[in-house]
C-alpha cells in the first residue's frame, strides 16, 4: 500500500500519475473541441475582451516565472558568483520548459497557430511590440535549448559535442540576458499602446521597466520556490554538491530578491508620482493596487530581508511563495482585472472552466516533463564523468 516514495520502482498508479493523467485526458478533450469548434466554443473571449487567461496566465506569468533561467546563469557566469553554480541547471531547465510551454499554450489562443512563423519569416511587422516579443522568445527558446543540451549530452554520453557547447556558455549567457531584457520588458510595453483601456494605476510609460525588474524578482523567487519543491520530491536525485550549496543559494537569492523588490517598489512609486495618480489610491482599484504593492511587494521584501538576517530559510521560502503569487497577481491585474476597467461589469471578462482547464493542463505537462528529465539527466547532480569540469 505504502511503498516509500524514494525507494525502488514506483507503481504506475501513484497519486501523482492518476491526477496528472486525469488532467491530461480532460486537456486533450478540450483541445479537440477547441480545434474543431473554434476559440469561441471553449472561451469567454469576446470582441471587447480579445485576450483572456491564455495570454494573462500562460504567456505573461509563464514568461515572468521562467526568468530564473537568465537571472541564475547571469549571477553565476557573468557576475562570477560561482556558489550559485548548482542552481543553474535546474533554473535553465525550468526556464526552457517554461518557454516551450508558453509557445505550446499560444497554439490554443492563436486563431491560425500554424502561421506563428509568419511574423518572423514571411512579413515582419516591425512597428509592433508583439513582433519584438515573438522574435526574442523564439531566439531565447533556442538559446535555452542549447544551454540545456550539456545535461542531455552527458546523459547520452556525447562528450565531444558537449565540450563544444560548454565553451559557448558565456556568449549564450550574455545573449540570453539581452533577449530576456528585451522581451520581458516588451511584454509590459505591449500595453503602452492602450492607455485608454488600462487603469491609470497600472498604465505607465515605465511599464517596460516594471515588467523587466519584476521579472528578476519573479525569476529568483521561482528558483527558491522550485528548489524547495524539488527538495521534497526529487531529493533522491540530488548529490552532495547540490545539497551542500542549496542553503547558500537560498540565502544569496533571498538577499538579492529583497533588494530587487525594494527597487521595484521604489520605481513603482516614482511612476505613481510622475503621472500624479495618487488620488486613485482611494478608489476601489486603489485598494487592489495597494494590496498588490503592500502585500505582494513590500511584505515579501521585508520578509526576505529578515529571513536573510536571521538565516531563517523557512521565512525566505515563504517570502518566495508570496513573491511568486504577487507576480501572478500583478500580471492578472494588468492583463485582465484592471484592463477594460471602463466597461460595465456585464461586458467584463471572466475565464470559462475550459479555459482554466487548458491552463492547468499546460502546467501539468510542464511538471510531468520536468520529472521525466530530472529523474534521468544530471540536473540536480553532477554526472560522474564530468566532475568538477566547469
Amino acid at each position, binding site marked *: 500500500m505504502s511503498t516509500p516514495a524514494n525507494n525502488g520502482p514506483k507503481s504506475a498508479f501513484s497519486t501523482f500519475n492518476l491526477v496528472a493523467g486525469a488532467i491530461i485526458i480532460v486537456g486533450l478533450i478540450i483541445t479537440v473541441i477547441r480545434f474543431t469548434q473554434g476559440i469561441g466554443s471553449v472561451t469567454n*473571449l469576446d470582441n471587447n475582451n480579445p485576450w483572456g487567461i491564455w495570454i494573462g496566465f500562460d504567456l505573461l506569468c509563464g514568461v515572468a516565472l521562467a526568468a530564473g533561467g537568465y537571472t541564475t546563469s547571469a549571477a553565476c557566469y557573468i*557576475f*562570477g558568483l560561482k556558489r550559485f553554480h548548482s542552481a543553474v541547471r535546474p533554473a535553465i531547465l525550468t526556464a526552457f520548459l517554461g518557454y516551450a510551454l508558453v509557445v505550446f499554450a499560444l497554439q490554443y489562443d492563436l486563431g491560425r497557430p500554424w502561421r506563428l512563423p509568419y511574423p518572423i519569416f514571411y512579413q515582419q511587422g516591425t512597428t509592433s511590440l508583439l513582433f519584438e516579443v515573438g522574435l526574442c522568445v523564439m531566439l531565447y527558446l533556442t538559446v535555452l535549448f542549447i544551454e540545456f543540451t550539456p545535461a542531455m549530452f552527458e546523459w547520452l554520453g556525447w562528450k565531444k559535442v558537449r565540450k563544444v557547447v560548454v565553451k559557448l556558455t558565456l556568449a549564450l549567457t550574455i545573449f540570453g540576458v539581452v533577449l530576456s531584457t528585451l522581451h520581458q520588458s516588451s511584454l509590459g510595453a505591449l500595453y503602452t499602446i*492602450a492607455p485608454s483601456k488600462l487603469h491609470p494605476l497600472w498604465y505607465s510609460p515605465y511599464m517596460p521597466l516594471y515588467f523587466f525588474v519584476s521579472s528578476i524578482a519573479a525569476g529568483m523567487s521561482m528558483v527558491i520556490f522550485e528548489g524547495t519543491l524539488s527538495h521534497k520530491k526529487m531529493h533522491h536525485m540530488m548529490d552532495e554538491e547540490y545539497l551542500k550549496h542549496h542553503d547558500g543559494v537560498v540565502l544569496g537569492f533571498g538577499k538579492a530578491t529583497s533588494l530587487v523588490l525594494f527597487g521595484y517598489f521604489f520605481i513603482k512609486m516614482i511612476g505613481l508620482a510622475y503621472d500624479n495618480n495618487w488620488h486613485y489610491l482611494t478608489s476601489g482599484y486603489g485598494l487592489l493596487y495597494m494590496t498588490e504593492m503592500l502585500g505582494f511587494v513590500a511584505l515579501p521584501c521585508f520578509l526576505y530581508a529578515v529571513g536573510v538576517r536571521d538565516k531563517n530559510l523557512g521565512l525566505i521560502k515563504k517570502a518566495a511563495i508570496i513573491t511568486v503569487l504577487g507576480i501572478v497577481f500583478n500580471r492578472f491585474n494588468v492583463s485582465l482585472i484592471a484592463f477594460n476597467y471602463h466597461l460595465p461589469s456585464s461586458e467584463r471578462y471572466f475565464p470559462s472552466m475550459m479555459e482554466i482547464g487548458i491552463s492547468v493542463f499546460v502546467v501539468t505537462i510542464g511538471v510531468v516533463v520536468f520529472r521525466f528529465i530530472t529523474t534521468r539527466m544530471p540536473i540536480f547532480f553532477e554526472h560522474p564523468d564530468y566532475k568538477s569540469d566547469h
Partner: protein
Amino acid sequence: MLRRTFLGVLGATCVGAALPTGAKAGGKEFKGYPGSKGVLFDATRCIGCRKCEAACNKVNNLPEPEKKFDDLSVLDTKRRTDAKTFTVVNKYNGPENPVFRKSQCNHCLEPACASACFVKAFKKLPNGAVVYDESVCVGCRYCMVACPFEIPTYEYDEPLTPRVMKCTMCAPRLAEGKLPGCVEGCPKEALVFGERDELIKIARQRIRRNPDRYIDHLYGENEMGGTSWMYLSGVPFNEIGMREDLGTKSAPELTAGALAAVPMVAGLWPVLLGGIYAVTQRNSKVADEERKEAVDNAIARASAEAEKTLSEALKKADVANKRQIEVEVKKAVEEALAPKEEQEENSEKEES
C-alpha cells in the same frame, strides 16, 4: 579632459536610452495622406432609421441579421459591431429628443491596429481606408487590444480560418468610384463623404453657422492623432458613448519610446555584461593570485620556523649528546680505574 567629455557623452547616452518617451526626431508628425477621403457624421441629423446598417450589410454581403433592419426596437439595447455587423447605430438620451450615433471603424490616420500588427495585416491606404489582409493574419488579436475605439471584431466560432472583421470604408467600392454603402444609403445626409480636409472645413462651417445646435468640437480631427471618420454632435460626446479622454497622441507615438530602447539595449547590454564579466574574472584572478601568494608566504614562514626549531633542537641534542658522551666516558674511565684502585687498596692492606 577628453576622457571626461567621452564619459559625459556616454552617460548622457545611457540616460537618453533609459528614458521612455519619444526617441523619435522632434516634430515628425504624420498628418495623413494628402487628398485622402473621409466621412463626416452629424449626430444632429441622424434619425436612427438604420438604413446605413442595411446598406452596409448588403454591399459587404454580410449574413442576414436576426431582426430586420426596419425593426427599430433593437435601438433600445446598446449594441456594438461584431463579425457580422460592421456598423451599428445606438440610441442615447438627449436633453429633449433621443440622439443617435453611428459607429464603425474610424480609419485612423495612424491606425493603432496597423501599428500593433506583427505581420502587417493592416494597412492605411492613401485614399484613407484602413484595410485588412486575411491571408497573413495569425489571429493574435493584438489589433483588438490596441484599438482605442474597440472596433476590430473576431470570428470566434471559426475553428480553422477565423478573420478579424471590421468596416473597410468600402475600399473596393471606392476603387470603382462609388460611395461607401452607408453614405449612399443615408436618407438624411447625416453622412458626408469627401476629402478629409474639405470635411473639416464643412464641419467648422456648420458649427459657425449654428453655434446653438453644435458642441464646438469636431471629434476625430485630432483624437488619437486624427481619424478619417469625424463626428459632429449637439450633446457632449461622452453622452453618446464616445471617449473624450483618448488624447491626441497617435498609437505609434505611444510605443515609440519602448521600440527606440530596443537597439540601445541590444547595443549596450553585451558591452556592459562583458565588462562586468571581465571585472569579475579579473577580481577572481587577483583573488586567486593573492591567495596563492598568501599560501606561499605562509608555507615559507612555516618552513623557516620549522627549520629554526629543528636546528635548535639539533643543537640542543648535540649539547645533550656531548654531555652524555662525557658522562659516559667519565663513567667508563671510573669503571676502568675502579679495579686498579681496589688492587692498590688490597696491596696496601697486605703490606701492613
